[in-house]
């Protein structure tokens, strides 16, 4: 592989402590072995940072990394990844985002940026092709995402792309994200808090170059095929554009997998329609919106008029996950309140999954008497939309009880004596599917390298949606092998710079086909998928060295039977599935990669 094959070949290394900015050659061997974005960013991070590091210390690093397909004509290839150790979980944090920022960085001539150290005063990184400099961010500090983006565009130019944090990142909210193009998020795991700890407010970039692929003719053929498949697919060609990801509410509720009231009251919500994609499209959708080069365009532009609700406003989203976290998880069916909470999260750079799930946890703790009203300042019961939105605001503003909410549900529940009521894995909140009703997603949550997460191996596809095959959500057999394939494929997809949502329509042949032609590879599909497995095992090794807890689930999922719905009486049968999964992964019974497996993946020489 050589420079020009999907890569610019140059990385920026920015030392915030002494202000030096160095251009260095991209490590092409690692680029080949770890694909790009999530994989390559993690490899650089593992090479350079002690897994035991305090994520919010100056010694930590923060890496922005694109993939070889980012900014090319490949299908939905506007993605980049932010990698660091997560302050929320202590595990590897890798957050993927779309929009236009990633492609712009490549057009400016850089595959990625490695931030080191800590600036003495707030600053931002300005990139205008060859001009790269750190600038003062004094006036930007304290501004939310939309304000900061507008100010930076006014200062630098309207055609600059902006990735910025909000005060949540400045104040150490452990689930603060980095927002680019205003509403696209490197959302989970607190990458924004790492950025804030470095006194780095934003990165602005403008590029006038282009990205060259290795075999343009073959590449265009692969891209044309992929795009045709996407356009003709019922999900990628029609469903996601019409209804967004919120379309899932009704069907997940139908299988009894939509957690209600922090999962306390099961996973069948009788008011699901109110917070569904259908209701959203009918009442509040202005238009759909796409990221760079995306034919799917799943984004929502939404509005609530002042005469419709006290929660009026305008913004983007929500995704299905936020529809649940601020909706049924908090016992709320007021879609305007859900929209409002989600808009605040976008403007204030906070992960809506963790935000909503943390409020839901606080509601349960309050209702059982574990949190006194005096700590919160008002009653916080399930179903109270006003209190829910107030909690989001208080967290963004680091006010009173909001400071505790800003630490996520695990630390909140632990503080009030009930860590078991945090619906989290490795201290990150699980998303919108109940692992008791959908067994494979329970296994996915437990084994995810970044803690509770649905986009590390989206088992909902085979278990509920029948993509690409239909398996029984109540059955445990075969879930280990299926999950391993999904996890490896996802690691590969995230690393190419192509959006994961394309995999609803595309499979390994189409993904590998575009990658191969971009980078000039003659590897087989299987050899390319093996890179995904390598990335997964590297992340796992980092977590082991960092001392991240073993794979498990909250006691609620393991012991409390679902009270109703199609999965009534079920718990997550984790131990059975874990044993199967570890065996398929070629790991020990304790869930650690064996020396043979590490050798097979050429990871045996990685030392931390």
């Amino acid at each position, binding site marked *: 592989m050589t420079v020009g094959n999907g890569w610019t070949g140059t990385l920026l290394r920015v030392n915030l402590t002494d202000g030096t900015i160095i251009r260095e050659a991209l490590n092409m061997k690692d680029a080949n072995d770890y694909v790009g974005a999530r994989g390559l960013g993690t490899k650089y991070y593992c090479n350079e940072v002690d897994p035991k590091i305090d994520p919010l210390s100056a010694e930590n690093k923060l890496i922005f990394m694109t993939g070889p397909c980012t900014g090319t004509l490949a299908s939905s290839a506007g993605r980049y990844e932010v990698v660091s150790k997560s302050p929320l979980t202590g595990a590897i944090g890798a957050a993927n985002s779309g929009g236009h920022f990633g492609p712009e960085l490549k057009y400016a001539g850089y595959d990625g940026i490695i931030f080191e150290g800590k600036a003495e005063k707030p600053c931002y990184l300005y990139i205008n092709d060859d001009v790269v400099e750190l600038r003062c961010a004094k006036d930007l500090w304290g501004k939310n995402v939309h304000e900061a983006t507008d100010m930076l565009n006014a200062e630098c130019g309207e055609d600059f792309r902006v990735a910025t944090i909000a005060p949540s990142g400045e104040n150490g909210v452990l689930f603060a994200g980095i927002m680019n193009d205003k509403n696209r998020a490197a959302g989970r795991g607190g990458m924004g808090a790492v950025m804030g700890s470095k006194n780095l407010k934003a990165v602005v970039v403008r590029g006038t170059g282009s990205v060259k692929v290795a075999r343009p003719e073959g590449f265009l053929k692969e891209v044309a095929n992929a795009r045709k498949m996407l356009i003709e697919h*019922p*999900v990628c060609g*029609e*469903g*996601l554009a*019409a*209804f*967004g*990801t*919120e*379309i*899932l509410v*009704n*069907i997940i509720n*139908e*299988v*009894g997998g939509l957690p209600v009231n922090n999962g306390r009251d099961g996973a069948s919500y009788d008011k699901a*329609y109110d917070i569904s*994609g*259908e209701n959203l499209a009918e009442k509040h959708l202005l238009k759909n919106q796409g990221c760079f080069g995306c034919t799917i365009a*799943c984004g929502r532009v939404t509005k609530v008029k002042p005469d419709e609700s006290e929660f009026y406003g305008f913004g983007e989203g929500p*995704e*299905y*996950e936020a529809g649940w976290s601020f909706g049924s998880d908090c016992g709320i069916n007021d879609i305007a309140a859900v929209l409002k909470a989600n808009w605040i999260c976008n403007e204030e750079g906070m992960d809506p999954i963790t935000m909503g799930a943390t409020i839901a946890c606080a509601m349960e703790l309050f209702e059982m008497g574990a949190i006194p009203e005096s700590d919160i300042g008002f009653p916080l019961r399930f179903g109270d939309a006003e209190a829910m939105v107030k909690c989001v605001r208080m967290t963004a503003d680091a006010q009173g009880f909001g400071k505790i909410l800003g630490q996520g549900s695990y630390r909140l529940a632990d503080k009030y004596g009930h860590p078991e009521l945090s619906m989290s894995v490795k201290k990150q909140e699980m998303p919108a599917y109940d692992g008791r009703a959908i067994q494979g997603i329970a296994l996915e949550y437990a084994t995810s390298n970044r803690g509770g997460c*649905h*986009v590390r191996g*989206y088992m*909902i*596809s085979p278990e*509920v*949606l*029948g*993509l690409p095959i*239909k398996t*029984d959500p109540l059955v445990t057999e075969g879930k280990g092998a299926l999950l391993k394939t999904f996890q490896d494929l996802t690691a590969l997809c995230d690393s190419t710079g192509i959006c*994961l*949502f394309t995999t*609803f329509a595309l499979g390994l042949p189409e993904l590998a086909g575009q990658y191969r032609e971009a980078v000039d590879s003659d590897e087989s599909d299987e050899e390319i998928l093996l890179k995904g497995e390598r990335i997964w095992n590297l992340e796992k090794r980092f977590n082991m060295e960092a001392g991240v807890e073993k794979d498990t689930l909250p006691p609620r999922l393991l012991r409390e039977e679902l009270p109703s*719905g*199609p*999965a009534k009486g079920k718990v997550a049968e984790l131990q059975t599935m874990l044993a199967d999964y570890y065996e398929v992964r070629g790991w020990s019974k304790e869930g650690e990669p064996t020396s043979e497996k590490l050798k097979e993946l050429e990871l045996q020489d990685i030392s931390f």
Partner: protein
Amino acid sequence: MQVKFFATYISVVGQRVIDIPAPSSVLDLLTYLSQKYPEFSTTKKLLTDDGLDMRDDVICMVNGRHIIHMGGVNCPLTDRDVVAITPQMAGG
């Protein structure tokens, strides 16, 4: 028997839920719907061209269980059942 519709199927039927006497099987239900609502036999087909099976891009659940796990289109229906029908969808 209650039949729920999701996504674009709501506009085909004009309602989110209908109440009808239970046909004997899912196949009979899908055949009935295809005849009653023209779009279900033209632009948004529910059945395969031979009329003997459900198309792959349709999801049908009986009491929250996908019919694939309940004997497919031969799954028997009673008046107490709740059926949900939706076009293939995804999100995340």
